[in-house]
């Protein structure tokens, strides 16, 4: 780990200032779950680490405009116990799946959304695309954990966020703060005025074509301050992560669903898969197929088949198609109270 400056802002405005200063290569510290590993492996070597933990507004969960606003620094443990979030069980499923009480206690929802890929080539220093002398290592090497969707381009990694599938299924938006965003509206938070913009979380992630693009739309100097969820109302939800290990482990594949069921028939459905593509993977066809149907073992199975029908596995990860299929099926059954155990 290289030496760096440590900055601890107490307002969003101050954070923006610390992050945006000219000549500074800043990294953002939330819970530290990912950043510490990245620093130690020297995959990032910032000149300044900006610790957001002392910014009070980032820790709050509040009601806001037909929904709930969650501060990016809210920890997994706090998320699971906040009464305002009681209607969003698909989020609790994720917290449960993390299993490590240390990560639940210190990891944050914003940090999770920005967690960089766990692709072992990336973590060994070959970059997000895992290239060595122009050769894609994930494509030609060991890709047992890599993408089965959206892998036609240079990016083969899978998005690491545990919460993004659930949040996207809910139609979440994220508030991006930071001066380098040119088309911002003015927003007020913590008594200071900062540039901020709300965007749907679905559009937050990108599949990079080149190494420099990164895997989110965040530009240097920007950070995610809040997440907004629409009111849960009558929507039922669930997340199903397929985990090899009972302890701390990354899902082999996951699926989150939100269902609007009326009189036993699906009025609206949103299925999002995780850990299968460079971005969370919205299963639009499968969601549409469910409309007007009742969910049972058979229809959940067909919807799952539809969800994975366009998968294009790499040389070693065909098994992930079956795992993703199971995740979708079980998430649907779980959301409708039909999954044993």
């Amino acid at each position: 780990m290289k030496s760096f400056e440590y900055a601890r802002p107490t307002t969003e405005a101050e954070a923006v200032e610390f992050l945006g200063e000219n000549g500074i290569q800043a990294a953002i510290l939330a819970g530290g779950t990912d950043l510490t590993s990245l620093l130690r492996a020297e995959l990032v070597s910032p000149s300044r680490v900006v610790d957001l933990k002392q910014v009070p507004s980032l820790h709050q969960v509040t009601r806001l405009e037909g929904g709930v606003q969650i501060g990016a620094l809210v920890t997994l443990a706090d998320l699971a116990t906040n009464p305002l979030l009681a209607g969003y069980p698909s989020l609790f499923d994720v917290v449960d799946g993390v299993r490590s009480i240390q990560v639940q206690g210190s990891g944050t929802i914003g940090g999770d959304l920005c967690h960089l890929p766990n692709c072992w080539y990336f973590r060994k220093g070959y970059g997000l695309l895992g290239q060595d002398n122009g050769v894609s290592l994930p494509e030609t090497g060991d890709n047992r954990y890599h993408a089965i969707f959206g892998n036609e381009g240079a990016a083969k990694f899978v998005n690491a966020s545990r919460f993004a599938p659930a949040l996207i299924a809910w139609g979440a938006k994220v508030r991006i703060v930071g001066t380098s965003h040119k088309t911002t509206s003015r927003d007020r938070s913590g008594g200071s005025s900062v540039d901020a913009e709300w965007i749907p979380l679905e559009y937050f992630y990108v599949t990079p074509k080149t190494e420099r693009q990164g895997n989110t739309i965040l530009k240097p100097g920007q950070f995610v301050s809040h997440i907004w969820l629409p009111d849960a109302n009558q929507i039922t939800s669930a997340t199903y992560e397929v985990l090899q290990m009972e302890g701390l482990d990354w899902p082999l594949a996951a699926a989150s669903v939100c269902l609007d069921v009326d009189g036993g028939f699906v009025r609206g459905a949103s299925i999002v898969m995780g850990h299968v593509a460079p971005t969370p993977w919205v299963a639009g066809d499968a969601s549409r197929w469910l409309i007007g149907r009742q969910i049972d073992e058979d229809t959940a199975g067909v919807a799952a088949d539809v969800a994975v029908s366009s998968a294009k596995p790499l040389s070693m990860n065909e098994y992930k198609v079956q795992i993703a299929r199971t995740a979708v099926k079980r998430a649907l059954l779980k959301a409708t109270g039909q999954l044993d155990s």
Partner: protein
Amino acid sequence: MVERKIGWEPQGSHTLVGGEIQRVDGKVKASGQAKYTNDINTPGTLFAKLLTSPHAHAKLVLLNIEKAKGVKGVKSVLAIAKVGDEIQYEGWPIVAIAAERPEFAEDGLRAVEFKFEPLPHFVDGSDFKGAVEADVTVGGKPLKLTKSVGKSGQGDVEVALKEAKHVHRGTYGIHMITHMSMEPHGSHAAWDGENLNVALSTENVSGTSGQYVQPVGVDAMNVNIRCDFLGSGFGSKSTVDEWDVACAKLAKATGKPVRLMLSRTTEMQIGGNRPSAFAEVTVACDAEGNVTAWDSRHWGSNGLQGSIVDHDVTPYVFLPKTRQSVSTGIATNCSPERPWRAPHHPQACAYTQTALDDLAAKAGIDSLQFFQKNLNLTSLPHIYGPELEIAAKLIDWKGKWHPRGKGSGNGPVKRGVGVALHTWDGAANQSNVTLKVHSDGSVEVVTGSQDVGTGTRTCIAQVAADTFGVSMSTIKVSLGSNQFPKAGPSEGSSTIGGVTGPVRRTAQQALWKILDLVAAKYTVERTTLTARDGKVWLGEKEVCTWKQAATLVGPMGLELYGGPVTEDEGLTNHQVGGVQMAEVAVDTETGVIRIVKMVAVQDAGMIVNRLLARSQVYSGLIMGIAYSLSEERIMDNKTGRFINANLNDYKLPRIGDIGDLVVEFYEPESEYKRGVIGLSEPPVISTGAAISNAVANAVGVRVPVLPLTPKRVLDALKGAKG
């Protein structure tokens, strides 16, 4: 008259030996007061770090350490490799730097100028064809060369196969793993004039000082090795390694103490390597299920040396009269093998007893009955027979076994049970002790042995206290120094037998001398005296207290030296048998396997400490579950690197992964009377085969290669569907 004979008391007669006794050093370990090598931080200690090769095979063409010497806080820079060296695996040490703070050492490493010229590598020991075709040379010699080809056998296998009723052919395998000691390798070295004082993380306290002589330039008599506590080694910590030598050299160059511990990644890359093994097996039986022939060709890699699982363990435990095997070792650009708990046995067990289980399925015979029927092919049928019966009851084999893939239930989760057997030598090592009874009745035992986690201190204190009839707090045990009487390395489950034997003998001899003094003073017949409950007794009559008796040895105390045990003394023995059964639940839609229950029934001769012994078996089961389900040293063919050398991707079980573990010792009088036999290795051996067999029983298909990851389970299920 009380017979004076070296040996253990009859079964059931000991007061402490055989009991459930907590570790004497449990509190200091649990509270962090115990100092492991990594905790030693004497004033002025410098921190050393290593620069290692990211390449599996390369030539070092540039190395310049001059700039690093000028980095703030850096005190000494040592080039371990030199320009022109052929680097033969990832993690190969290049430079070591000692600095005032760890981060300064890292700054120094970044200032080292180096350049590698990559060379072709070969890292996949499972790829026999690839190994033959690989165009990789090391030191001008083709690496693809199969380094050791071995053959063994007897009888005419071809004839036996023709005459057999059932013949099964299958390919099996088990991948490389690394040792994963909680405490990495390393040392803290400090010079005091000509003396080199080293706190070394070692399983071989008495045997390491000489290893410093040549590389460091020091006289053996001036090397003081200490290891009070060890965060495990599993066989990987018996040597002084190049990084330890570097640590001592840096300490000499700086005139300050230096500590150099491997980072987790480097530890995984070069701190240990358990060989892989793959086998094509043909095995046959007659109509009754009696195994008549074994034929195997096996291969694998133990890293750069290119040797392979020994012939003498193939086939494993079951030795049909007609058998042959051919083995081929493949050299790979991986760090060399170090002995891993029960070297080579888990691999041989995995490919032998899964193949036998498949043969049983082919013959339509219950696996347990099949194994029982063939116990005449083993060397320990009198042990395995009763052990299998005990295990079968504990796991409810009758209630749970079903023909393959035919378990009840329509859901995706299928349950199954499996069984496997193992053996281990476990003979005592050659250890010496000094035992001193002070005139106040306190007792000191000193030995150059070590506690690798087994509970050496506790077992020594227990035996001494039991022999003198005093409480364990009366006994002080000192170990972990090469200044103490020489003791064997903790390898091959040899320590507890190795130390308790001499302690028992010496304590008995000391006791008899003291009882003689008591007899003289109180004018009673010396051979009628006994010691228990802190007193000396004549039958049921108290003669004096232990303290009063001890005063008779005089102010200098009584000091005896005890040499290594021999088996004819009756204190120790060798060769044990154990059986394990597994019950698993396999999710056929995700390939995820959960351990429901593991039963281990183990013979270890006479158990010294039932609590610690059970702990040993638990740890064997847990490590066994790890290599069965998730643990794998994944060598990437593209980069030649150990691609999951971190605790994120190298999947080890946590508490939720290990299921219900049931341990039972098989200790009838016949085995008790054999004395102490090593216990550490055996319980890790048959876990893999037992779990694999349980999975086959559950899903109806053999998942042939360990670890049984979701990928391998789903691939096998898919392959079976066609």
